[in-house]
């Protein structure tokens, strides 16, 4: 705690501005680069609406732009929800999959495919959202039994329990319904590919609300990080804050997973990087996550578009492969016990 307490506000603000600029550049990259090589001048033309080749105009405007915007929002959502979870559970390992939220999304999607015969991406969005919400309610509900309410260890255990139960359901269904398996195995990889304006329109409001909620919670997280009793002594209403934060997490994760399927590492790693840069103050960690996470996410997506052209490698795989060495380096060379 002492080590990180005194960081220069001016330096941090400058850092944030620099990061914002970076993010802008990454967005430009995401629009200009893809599995189809399009000249930069054509990209600019397309954005203006007067590209000569109509296919390329469609690719830039109807595929890459919505995809970039979605990547921005989803990346930010994942990064923020990871930071919130780690703060509220005081557990540096927390991320949406540990809390059973991804399992909830997957279970509902697979049930929707098998029982309700839903096959379209728009339908998946609602199912995944509902699944995440149900899992979150279950986890929070179970963890709240008893005097102390939903303490970190109880949340972790409840998350593991709910994940287990939901995983069983999902597996049971795909074992008996090969069609459901055939659909969900693509969704499980986690990808921005094929998500265009309709998906963006569906989830953007939730992502926006979630992001605002998350940023508002920054100060409260600082208190909670000190421990429940300390936080109460400081005048915080711990239960209410915790509930609000979990609502924000549910909205963010739900919408993010709904749009792209389960994505690993963003929620786990980015908060640690942010913390390494700006110390333990959540009023800085959250804005840094807000900018850092989408930057990393979009860069990985762009990489995935290049390496297997004319095909694509899904961003979920890229994040999995690149995120791991990064995370491991983080664990090895920085003592993660210091939060």
């Amino acid at each position, binding site marked *: 705690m002492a080590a990180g307490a005194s960081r220069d506000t001016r330096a941090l603000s400058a850092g944030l501005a620099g990061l914002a600029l970076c993010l802008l550049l990454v967005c430009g990259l995401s629009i200009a680069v893809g599995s189809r090589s399009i000249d930069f001048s054509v990209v600019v033309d397309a954005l203006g609406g007067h590209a000569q080749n109509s296919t390329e105009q469609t690719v830039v405007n109807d595929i890459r732009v919505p995809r970039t915007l979605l990547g921005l929002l989803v990346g930010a959502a994942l990064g923020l929800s990871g930071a919130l979870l780690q703060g509220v559970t005081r557990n540096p390992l927390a991320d949406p999959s540990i809390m059973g939220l991804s399992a909830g999304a997957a279970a509902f999607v697979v049930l929707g495919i098998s029982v309700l015969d839903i096959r379209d991406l728009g339908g998946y969005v609602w199912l995944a959202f509902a699944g995440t919400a149900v899992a979150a309610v279950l986890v929070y509900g179970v963890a709240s*039994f*008893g*005097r102390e309410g939903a303490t970190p260890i109880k949340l*972790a*255990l*409840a998350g*593991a329990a709910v994940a*287990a139960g939901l995983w069983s359901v999902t597996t049971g269904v795909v074992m008996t319904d090969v069609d459901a398996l055939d659909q969900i*195995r693509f969704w499980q990889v986690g990808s921005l590919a094929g998500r265009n304006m309709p998906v963006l329109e569906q989830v953007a409001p939730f992502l926006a609300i979630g992001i605002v909620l998350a940023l508002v919670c920054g100060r409260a997280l600082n208190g909670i990080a000190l421990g429940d009793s300390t936080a109460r002594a400081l005048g915080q209403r711990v239960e209410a804050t915790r509930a609000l934060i979990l609502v924000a997490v549910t909205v963010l994760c739900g919408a993010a997973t709904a749009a792209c399927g389960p994505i690993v590492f963003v929620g786990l790693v980015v908060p640690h990087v942010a913390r390494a840069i700006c110390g333990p103050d959540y009023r800085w960690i959250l804005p840094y996550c807000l900018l850092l996470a989408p930057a990393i996410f979009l860069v990985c997506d762009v990489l995935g578009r290049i390496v297997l052209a004319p095909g694509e490698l899904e961003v979920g795989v890229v994040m999995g492969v690149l995120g791991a060495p990064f995370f491991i380096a983080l664990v*090895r060379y920085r003592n993660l016990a210091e939060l």
Partner: protein
Amino acid sequence: MTGGVTTLRTAPVGASIRTLRLHRRRSRFALTALLGALAFALFVITLTVGSSSIPVTDVLASLFGLESNEGVDFIVHDLRLPIAGAALCVGLALGIAGTLFQQLLNNPLAAPEFVGISAGASLAAVSGIVLFAWSGIEISLAALAGAFAAAILIYALAWRGGISGYRLILIGIGLTELMLALVTYLIARAQIYDAREATHWLTGSIGQSGADELRALIVVLLLLSPLALLLNRSLRTLQLGDDAARGLGARVETARLGLLAIAVALVAFATAVAGPIAFVALVAGPIAHRILGPTQSSILAAGFVGASIVLVADLIAQQVLPVALPTGVVTGAVGAPYLLWVLVTLNRQGRGG
């Protein structure tokens, strides 16, 4: 959890302490034996149920070779015995390995599936199925190799002048996510029948493999369990934490490595037999601990609990459910209520966290 050392320091109260310890040891022995009997009873039950109802006496007669009836023998020896045997051995191996992990890493949530070994086995097996159209024993060997490779990799990455349990788990989680991302990718790209085969393997099912893998597991169990019990004494000192143990002159690293290696080997061979069966390793130790009371957990007891869980799960998966499903689906469904039970009881004792 402090066991023998504290009682030594309070020697003047000697006699009554000694009686207490003897009492505890006797009841611990009795309870462990009871658990063993339970596992055996479930083993016999597994042999007696099935689509064709065969009287228990006939089953036992066939089992011990007292009578020879071709039809009954085929069903008992060729169909049911490998299943029951595999369930028993896999459960034993996972139970023992799970409790070893938990004690070594000092964390009740430590389990092979979180530490990355199961993921390594899974990646190797799925690659074999999807990329190389391997079958049967080849898949099991791949799983074995994958488990060991992952264990070595995790250990190497986590080693920095020594092993901290915390770092090991973290790196294990990181590698698990990586490997599972690759597994998901392979399943997405495969032909649907390969994807189905891979998913079936990943779920974990008793009776998935043949006699060779089971024999290997039995040998490993027979060799390594006594070794683990012997090394268990060092384990108690480890539970005091690294610093205290070092102070007592215990050779922490060697003992830890040895027990870790045993645990890894048990999981690897069990996974080669049945695929990654979820949650058995996680819950067997704590359940045994709860049953035996506040003394140290018995590794053997954990093994018996593991065996019982797997046998029950297999019975449910194969006989009770309307559609036959792989065992792993049921253990996942069992893991959930168990964890919830932990929560509720933790709660009542006011130790919620």
